[in-house]
């Protein structure tokens, strides 16, 4: 009886992990984050900065840990994921520069 329950729980755990992997991706998290950011900036503009600071506190250590892991993996497997990440970051920096120029509203 105990073994049967253990089996069911293990099976549920397996499906849960599969579902998490399927839906909770970096893109979906970013999308949700951006959605919340836009909603806060529209509904409660005063709290936007706090939300951003809180996000930065979470994002920076996560990104650093992730990059360190990538670097280690690269050394072990001879891949170039770290380099690719750096290039992506550079590309986004340029994209952001473009976005900043686009949103400049120098007129009344």
């Amino acid at each position, binding site marked *: 009886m105990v073994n049967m329950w253990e089996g069911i729980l293990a099976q549920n755990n397996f499906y849960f992990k599969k579902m998490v992997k399927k839906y909770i991706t*970096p*893109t979906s*998290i*970013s*999308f949700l*984050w*951006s*959605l919340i*950011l*836009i909603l806060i*900036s*529209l509904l409660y*503009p005063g709290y*936007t*900065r706090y939300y*951003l*600071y809180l*996000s*930065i506190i979470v*994002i*920076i250590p*996560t*990104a*650093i840990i*992730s*990059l*360190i892991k990538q*670097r280690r993996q690269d*050394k072990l497997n001879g891949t170039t994921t*770290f*380099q690719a*990440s*750096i290039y*992506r*970051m*550079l*590309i*986004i*920096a340029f*994209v*952001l*520069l473009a*976005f*900043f*120029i*686009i*949103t*400049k*509203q*120098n*007129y*009344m």
Partner: protein
Amino acid sequence: MKKTRNSDFSLNQINPKLFMFGLIAVMTLIIFYSCSTGDESINKSGKAETKTKSEKNKTIGNAEIGLDNSVQENLNSYSEQIFVGVESLEIALNKNIDVDFNAQAMQMLETAEDEYDLKIVFEMAGIANSQEVINILKSIVAKQQAFITQNSSFYSLTPEKQAELLNASIEFARITYNSPVLFPPLEQVSGSSCARTFNNSRGDCIEDFAVCAAGAIYAAGGGIWPGLVVAAGCMAMKYFCDKRAKRDYKECVIMPMGTVPPPTGELTIHCTAFAIEEDSCWTTDSNGKYVGRYTGPK
């Protein structure tokens, strides 16, 4: 062997942690620099604008010799106030979906004798906020009257000279009003608080974007799509933030224009040269501000 290693210098030889932190620091600097250069460019343009304005002032000053400096300042201030008034009028009229002055409305407008008639005509033409529009028009007239009473030396000039000075001041006001950085001249018009608040709001928007951009860059480490999505979020946030700052500024500037200030001190009666009807006379307070139409004996 050593020589070969030196010539094949690559990223792998650098301490990976040091390299990564260096890159992150450089990228953060790029973002902050990009934002600060944007700000600087605004400031630079502001400086350039100020320079243009001061040069313009000089030109105006040179154009009229013998005219009191305060009159010149009043003329510039007056032109700016008219620009602000026209802008507020446009905003008030834009609140109505369909404004149409047909033949009948035009005829009624020509025969309108008092504020009540004017209100009826405006409402007939589809202006629901007729009182607001009338108040703005009154405020513009008040400013005109204030200028007329306070600058008698201007009217002693020849019409050509007056036109020349007016054109120069209108051009000056146009540059000031359409300028991306309007703060110093508009402070004279609407009080410094509006411009200061607008400056602070825009500064906050840029700072928020900088913080958000740093987040987007770090998010890009996890993939191009997360980075792009966060960057798009940052863009939307900055757009709304700038828009809000502009809206607040406009509301702040227009607010004092909407109503006629309460009268202070002794009232003075003014009448036009061809004062046939009662409507041709009006009163101003001790500050030269328009109070209302004069209906008593002339």
